[in-house]
């Protein structure tokens, strides 16, 4: 389609951008996006770029308490706790993928000197854990044993526990536990697991749940579409590979089973109590500052095993999973099989998506049902799609269980929809950025679940900025090298699925000396969860960061915050602390006003003091006001408590969700972004070198730009590993290598610097209009690289990771087609 033809189209709304048009791919000036008035109303501006008013602490790139402890090396992680008489724990795991357990013989292990306990399923008071239903269609409720007694469903499944005087003795004893198996047929591919007659992983069937989203009439729209793009894409088992392995120390204190562990969710105390058949108030979970998690510590890891060993031995126990145990048995990110049929008009407007998603859940539910809901709900990406038909299934296999992994299903589908967008552009010979501009969602648009977007959709701004960061194209470094560019846009929810009631509490107190104390039950995974609370409280109460202490993650002592997952902490606990600080200010301001001789409305909180803003008018109080310590004393004299608890409940969308049509309320809000890359592909070796990489996301408002950039750069890097290097290889359910040396994650020497560009639309549902950003930042990387490789070599990778072997296979297949004289002129037609 020509520029003239585009310009002549009716109903065009021109989005003006200050950023020059993108240089990729191909020639041409950025064309104004056109919108069809038949499908939706044109909307107002989405991108009031960086439209946030400056604040005094929020928005500053300040270092916090946790950073200081970290650069000193003095912060204590879960493995760093020691108690007198501490034992060392070890899990005995299944060595086969699918079997009946004939017998478990523990006598030799028990007889080893220094062994304090050997436990099997018989010793577990309530030997099952049932994952709370996600609410999916036909969802199975499957009990997972804490320690397998009669049936093994994956290699690595826990069967017995050992506690001993030293780690060496515990490890030796674990070797002495003898398990006799009668091996059973297993199923290791989710496609095979769906076939009639496939071995059943669980008696009720191999489909954990099936989500459906139906909007409009996708089949009719596809039949009427000018062009239909069909594609299949696959992702791999991915390891979180937090540098800190799963770890913790447990003990009994005041008759309470107490665990100090590396966990995203201290609320697991409830499940631990169920397993031990104890009242919930007899289990206490403390979350140490974590050495990373990325979803890998969202489910319980060491907790039930530590709790059982502590409860049985009545002694402190430490358990650290070795790296190899972690790779062998920890939950993984889901492999997906994604089939897309995308219908569009000749001018590049999407009319329909027909999408089928299959996720390998492995042997037990964990969060698979929820992951596949995220995948379904986000499968059309940040594009207006009037007709949608999605089916998304979580399928049991005898592989290692899969669960939460940064991006949570929305990560995988970006490869699907962004590969499809590039192919649509290629098929229509359109500019790839233009095709996206033409279809971007805008505030007020209706998404596939039937909901209306309530905040700005600044994805267009992120696209322009990310592309601009690549600057001039690089020349290939040799005759066998090809340079290509790619980019990918995304959207990712922040906050829990709204049909789960959610709340977060924060407690604040001004101490006698004017310092501030925060208590909040958040777990800090390393992303600054605690620090952002301090920064928000500092902004509102005018207390400097050095004079704020924050206590987090303790079911006994901190008010519940609900867990660190679903990019919910800034949104939920950030709002809670903001409201708590405002409430506290409201409590003490009248006392201050009285002392300062000014109206309450004129009391300002700054520099650790309260002052009268309209001092010259009222003429009363001294300019320096009074210190917060003095204010506390005045409050005490008036029986005003300078302490407050606030419980934040987000606006509940109570209109429900229809699991047959997929229409209803899903997520509170979304974050949007674009990544762009330039790569060089070596046609002889298949190696892909990333030359330039840019990430740009709308964060609403950056509470701490240093930390936001860090999230963006780190998420991009983790995504690059996922795109190019990382894969857990399984052979009949057994992990081929449990060495970190064989699970390649990016090193500093593997990838270029990540250029980060923050967009602040000033619209988000978090505190001060912030958006959650922890998960949004990873999903774009894989399609960005896939699109760049396709641009470089003319053939499209559709399976992750894009290893040299896979690139060579694409090139070899292309050679074969060439030799037979039927080479396709359309890049990406190789599959």
């Amino acid at each position: 389609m020509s520029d003239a033809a585009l310009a002549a189209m009716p109903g065009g709304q021109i989005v003006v951008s200050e950023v020059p048009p993108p240089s990729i791919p191909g020639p041409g000036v950025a064309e104004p996006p056109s919108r069809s008035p038949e499908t939706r109303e044109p909307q107002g501006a989405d991108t009031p770029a960086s439209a946030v008013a400056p604040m005094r602490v929020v928005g500053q790139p300040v270092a916090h308490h946790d950073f200081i402890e970290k650069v000193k090396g003095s912060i204590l992680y879960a493995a760093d706790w020691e108690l007198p008489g501490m034992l060392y724990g070890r899990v005995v795991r299944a060595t086969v993928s699918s079997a009946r357990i004939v017998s478990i013989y523990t006598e030799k292990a028990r007889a080893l000197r220094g062994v304090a306990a050997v436990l099997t399923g018989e010793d577990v008071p309530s030997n099952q854990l049932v994952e709370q239903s996600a609410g999916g269609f036909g969802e199975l409720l499957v009990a997972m044993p804490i320690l397998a007694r009669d049936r093994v469903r994956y290699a690595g499944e826990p069967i017995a526990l050992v506690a001993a005087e030293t780690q060496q003795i515990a490890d030796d004893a674990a070797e002495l536990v003898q398990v006799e198996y009668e091996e059973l047929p297993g199923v290791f591919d989710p496609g095979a697991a769906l076939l009639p007659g496939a071995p059943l992983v669980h008696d009720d069937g191999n489909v954990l749940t099936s989500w459906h989203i139906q909007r409009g009439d996708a089949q009719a729209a596809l039949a009427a579409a000018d062009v239909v793009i069909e594609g299949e894409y696959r992702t791999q088992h991915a390891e979180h590979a937090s540098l800190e392995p799963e770890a913790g120390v447990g003990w009994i204190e005041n008759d309470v089973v107490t665990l100090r562990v590396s966990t995203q969710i201290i609320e697991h105390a409830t499940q631990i109590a169920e397993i031990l058949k104890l009242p919930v108030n007899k289990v206490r979970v403390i979350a140490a500052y974590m050495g990373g998690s990325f979803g890998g510590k969202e489910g319980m890891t060491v907790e039930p095993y530590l709790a059982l060993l502590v409860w049985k031995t009545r002694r402190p126990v430490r358990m650290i999973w070795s790296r190899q145990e972690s790779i062998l048995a920890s939950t993984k990110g889901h492999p997906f099989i994604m089939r897309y049929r995308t219908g569009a008009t000749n001018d590049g407007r999407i009319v329909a998506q027909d999408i089928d998603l299959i996720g390998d859940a492995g042997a037990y539910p964990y969060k698979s049902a929820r992951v596949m809901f995220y995948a379904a709900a986000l499968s059309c990406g940040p594009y207006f799609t009037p007709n949608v038909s999605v089916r998304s299934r979580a399928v049991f296999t005898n592989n290692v269980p899969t669960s939460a992994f940064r991006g949570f299903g929305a990560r995988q589908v970006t490869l699907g929809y962004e590969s499809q967008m590039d192919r649509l552009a290629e098929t229509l010979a359109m500019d790839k950025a233009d095709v996206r501009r033409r279809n971007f969602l805008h505030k007020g648009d209706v998404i596939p679940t039937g909901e209306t977007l309530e905040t700005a959709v600044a994805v267009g701004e992120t696209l322009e900025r990310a592309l601009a960061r690549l600057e001039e194209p690089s020349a290939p470094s040799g005759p066998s090298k090809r340079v290509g560019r790619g980019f990918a846009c995304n959207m990712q929810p922040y906050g829990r699925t709204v049909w789960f009631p959610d709340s977060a509490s924060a407690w604040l107190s001004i101490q006698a000396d004017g310092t501030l104390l925060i208590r909040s039950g958040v777990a800090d995974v390393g992303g600054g969860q605690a620090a952002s609370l301090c920064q928000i409280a500092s902004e509102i109460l005018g207390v400097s960061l050095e004079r704020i202490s924050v206590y987090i993650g303790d079911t006994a002592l901190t008010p519940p915050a609900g867990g660190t997952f679903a990019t919910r902490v800034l949104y939920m606990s950030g709002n809670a602390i903001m409201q708590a600080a405002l409430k506290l200010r409201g409590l003490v301001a009248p006392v201050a006003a009285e002392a300062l001789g000014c109206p309450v409305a004129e009391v300002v909180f700054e520099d650790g003091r309260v002052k009268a803003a309209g001092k010259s008018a009222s003429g009363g109080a001294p300019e320096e006001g009074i210190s917060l310590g003095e204010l506390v004393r005045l409050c005490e004299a008036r029986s005003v408590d300078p302490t407050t608890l606030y419980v934040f409940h987000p606006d509940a969308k109570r209109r429900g969700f229809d699991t047959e049509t997929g229409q209803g309320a899903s997520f509170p809000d979304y974050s949007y972004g674009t990544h762009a890359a330039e790569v060089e592909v070596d046609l002889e070796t298949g190696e892909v070198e990333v030359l330039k990489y840019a990430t740009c996301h709308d964060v609403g408002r950056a509470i701490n730009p240093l930390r936001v950039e860090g999230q963006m750069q780190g998420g991009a890097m983790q995504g690059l590993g996922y795109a190019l290097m990382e894969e857990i290889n399984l052979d009949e359910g057994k992990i081929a290598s449990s060495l970190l040396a064989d699970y390649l994650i990016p090193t500093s020497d593997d990838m270029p610097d990540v250029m980060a560009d923050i967009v602040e639309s000033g619209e988000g549902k978090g505190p001060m209009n912030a958006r959650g950003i922890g998960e949004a930042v990873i999903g774009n990387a894989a399609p960005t690289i896939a699109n760049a490789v396709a641009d470089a070599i003319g053939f499209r990778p559709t399976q992750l990771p894009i290893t040299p072997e896979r690139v060579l296979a694409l090139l070899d297949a292309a050679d074969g087609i060439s030799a037979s004289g039927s080479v396709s002129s359309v890049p990406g037609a190789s599959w």
Partner: protein
Amino acid sequence: MSLQQVTLQVNGVAHEISVAPDALLLDALHDQLGFKDVRYGCGEGVCGTCTVLLDGEAVSSCLVYAVQVEFREITTLAGLLGEDESLHPLQETFLRLGGTQCGFCTPGVILTAYSLAQRTPRPTREEIRYELGGSLCRCTGYTKILDAVESYLEDRAFASEEARS
């Protein structure tokens, strides 16, 4: 297995401990002597979180037996701190430029960078990138780590030029 007496010289202080001949330096430092800035990450010598300086050279303490390093100078990250636990200028730049997130890799990263800075007056960003290849970080994407190391080296070079002139 019989225990052996060894003297480990850590951050300028001699510690006498009993260890098995196959006890790893990592475990002796972390579990026996309480140096919690030396951290287990993989046990394969791949990740770098257990890095210490051995006579100034960065090594993975999970690949060294405690009995091998008697009387050699062992430095952990805490050993870079000055009087009253004041931060080393390299730690200051990590703090200022956000070269840490979860912090688990940070001791190994800073010690490796420190070792490079001791050997080489003014390494390029690419040399820093290569040198830090054995210190995995899963959070930062490395960009801010490289920024911090580079900034420290620039400041140091500037300071020494100032001193000369």
